[in-house]
């Protein structure tokens, strides 16, 4: 589950007098209506494919009721069927339509990804920015929690939390993922702000009389945009994976239709023994496809996070 190395770093620019190029790229970004970072993302072919793929997923999730032939929990069909014309991917042991569940599952995965990704990014920002900017005692305390978050074994913690929380459901999964997944982002953001806080424009903002909060939100945060996007992407990706894993282990809410729960139920429901390969293969593949879209986008985000591009 854990992949070392973190976000891949893009190849650094060739040396030389290429300032003009950097300026040109950023200028071009400004001629569009879109934010500059989006333009850079969009220009990258792989990233564009990823964005389109993700957009397709979002569309499927939003339009699930129109796309799916049946409700995800409608169990009015013959049980444990293989793929047929009426049920493209067969039915579950409870007689639900697998294809419809796949369609609705997109909602869960995206919701978890977006919400948990956002929450852990927000926590990471709040902690990382505060610690990095204020330094001193506050930093010591917050850094302790960050380091703690980094060394506490995440998956066991997730499992324990998910198993013992008094409520079940997607909300819990999101909370668990958020609680266990913010530390890494916080550490990176703290490191980043420590370099940014010594920038002259931050000093300049102090001289201009801006408050600390304003400096963090208006001067520093915009310059960390790509870092924040990267952080969000990896948190979202982690969250989607974690949800699937937890659900697969049976720690999710079985009433939520998600690809992880589908795999769990396929496993429990004897999909392999009844030869319903579609029930097993489909959720995994579709999950892989969603992860692929994120990975492709990450290629572009790497270009963003390349310091040569990021700095003015």
């Amino acid at each position: 589950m854990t992949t070392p190395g973190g976000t891949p770093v893009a190849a650094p620019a060739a040396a030389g007098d290429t300032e003009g190029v950097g300026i040109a790229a950023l200028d071009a970004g400004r001629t569009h209506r879109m934010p500059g970072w989006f333009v850079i993302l969009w220009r990258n072919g792989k990233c564009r494919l990823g964005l389109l793929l993700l957009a397709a997923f979002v569309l499927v999730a939003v339009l699930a009721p129109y796309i799916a032939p049946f409700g995800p929990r409608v169990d009015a069909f013959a049980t444990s069927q293989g793929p047929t014309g009426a049920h493209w991917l067969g039915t579950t042991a409870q007689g639900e339509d697998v294809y419809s569940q796949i369609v609705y599952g997109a909602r869960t995965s995206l919701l978890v990804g977006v919400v948990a990704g956002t929450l852990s990014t927000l926590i990471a920002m709040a902690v990382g920015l505060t610690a990095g900017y204020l330094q001193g005692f506050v930093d010591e305390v917050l850094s302790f929690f960050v380091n703690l978050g980094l060394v506490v074994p995440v998956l066991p913690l997730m499992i324990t939390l998910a198993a013992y929380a008094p409520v079940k459901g997607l909300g819990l999964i999101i909370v668990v993922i958020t609680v266990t997944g913010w530390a890494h982002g916080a550490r990176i953001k703290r490191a980043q702000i420590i370099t940014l806080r010594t920038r002259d424009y931050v000093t300049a903002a102090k001289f201009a009389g801006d408050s600390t909060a304003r400096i963090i939100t208006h001067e520093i945060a915009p310059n960390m945009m790509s870092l924040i996007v990267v952080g969000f992407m990896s948190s979202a990706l982690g969250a989607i994976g974690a949800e699937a894993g937890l659900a697969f282990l049976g720690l999710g809410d079985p009433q939520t239709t998600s690809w992880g729960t589908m795999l769990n139920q396929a496993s429990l429901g004897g999909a392999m023994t009844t030869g319903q390969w579609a029930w097993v293969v489909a959720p995994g593949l579709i999950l892989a496809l969603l992860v692929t879209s994120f990975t492709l986008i990450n290629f572009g985000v790497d270009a963003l996070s390349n310091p040569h591009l990021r700095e003015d």
Partner: protein
Amino acid sequence: MSRPRSTTALVAGTAVLGLLLAGCTGTDGSGKSTGAGGRIDYLNFGDFGGGAAPKPNYNPYLDAVKLSSTLYMFETLYIVEGNSCKEKPWLADSYKWQDPETLVFDIRPGVKWNDGKSFTAKDVEFTFNMLKKHPALDVRGAWAKLNSVKANGGKVVFSFKEPGASAFTIINQVPIVPKHIWSKVKDPTTFTNAKSPVGTGPMKMKSFSPKQLVTTRNGRYWQADKVKVNEIRFNKTDAGGQVEQLKLSRGEYDQQGLYVPDIQKTYVNRDPKHHHYWYAPGGPVSIYMNLTRAPFDDVRFRRALTKAFDHQKVIRRAQLGYVTHASQSGLVVPGQKDFLPKTLPDEGRIGYDPAAADKELTKAGYKKDGEGRRLGKNGKPISFSFKVPGSYTDWVASSKILIENLKSLGMDVEQETPTPKSQEEDRATGNYDMTFGVHGGTCNNYTNFSEPLSSARTAPIGKKADGNQVRWKDARTDKLLGELRVAVSRDRQKQAVHGLVDIMMDEVPMIPIWYGAKWFQYTTNKAEGWPNERNAYAAAGDNLVWLTHLTPAKD
């Protein structure tokens, strides 16, 4: 089972690796092996308990952690067979109620421990008194009823604090251990009995590994002639649903107790001649209504609901046809049909009749409004929640059908899916409108009825009740329970049970929907004579009874 051809290509690359490591796996399940003396060489059984990484533990009182082979090594005085609840003499020849407070067993002569020492009444006396000393071992709660246990020659005298009829099944669930071993054990609560455990049972330990536990035939067994199996191998059954189902379908287990989806297709059809299953009915899964809340406090409302549920649809769709329609009587039929009043139609099963339910509801004052909403006595639309543990998918599916039934009667029912733990908690504290509960199903009818209905067991809303979670308070019920508790003769017992059945039928403190199934699969490759629907001489759990019925397969 269809095997996708494409997988061949997929695996071609790794084939070399596979060939290098080739060698078949698993236990050989299909070979016939009848050894000398007309006995079966060995049988492969399912799990032996003990968790993911079992440790040897043959202490028969450590219920939660002992390994299953223990059940084949220790025996009780009598066996109350779990299907028809008939009493079978076992380590005791016979018993007699000297008076309602005194029970005397005649110990079977000639029984030997598997170390060659004789089994005596002293062993029984020692066993029970050890449980008295170590309440942690008294898992059946025998000493809640007992006053003393004394050996008297070949007899053992049990004296009770009060008329002890209802304790009979409890006494006979206590496995008897050898005094000459256990008296030397310092602390029997931490005694694992791991090294060659001494018992009276038909099997004794041969070997143990966390994957497989092997027991071998006890040649000194008091009915050794009936044991036709040389070896029982228990196999760790922990590979998770699919794989275990697969192993089962390959015939790798001669006996197993798994949940298998679509068992006809995945198991029986693989070898219809030898693969069999028998899912005997267990305790009823019932709809619990919170009787302290309206409209469930109205008996006419409850009575109307008995006709409102489509049992058959639940059984067919949500329970995959593995279970049977539960009788409203609270008893498990057909096993306990002797206890039913003869006048009861269809053994107490109430059919699905939504029209009648609708009519009765209306008559009882629950009218529908213009929009088809069923109104309560207060004139407001009836609206309540149905709590079902979210991870029990079959229960959830069942509850959906039941909720549909209620909705079609104009009630607004919302499904809630808490965790099993919090559903249990909510049920115990009375924090629910409608939910599922399980009760009864044992051979002790006093327990069967007192647990869900005795007013002594209940607790106010908000407090945890260890029984009677529907909060049923009825003097007649309590009186009948009191009679049942002390009824020594079967007739007296029946009389009391009839009264309780009447209450179930008329007052409807809960509505049984289906009987929980006892998973039991077996193959007849090597052994025959397993209990089944046609020859229900024992329940799946009466392992000692059916082991002595097994014979080598003829074909």
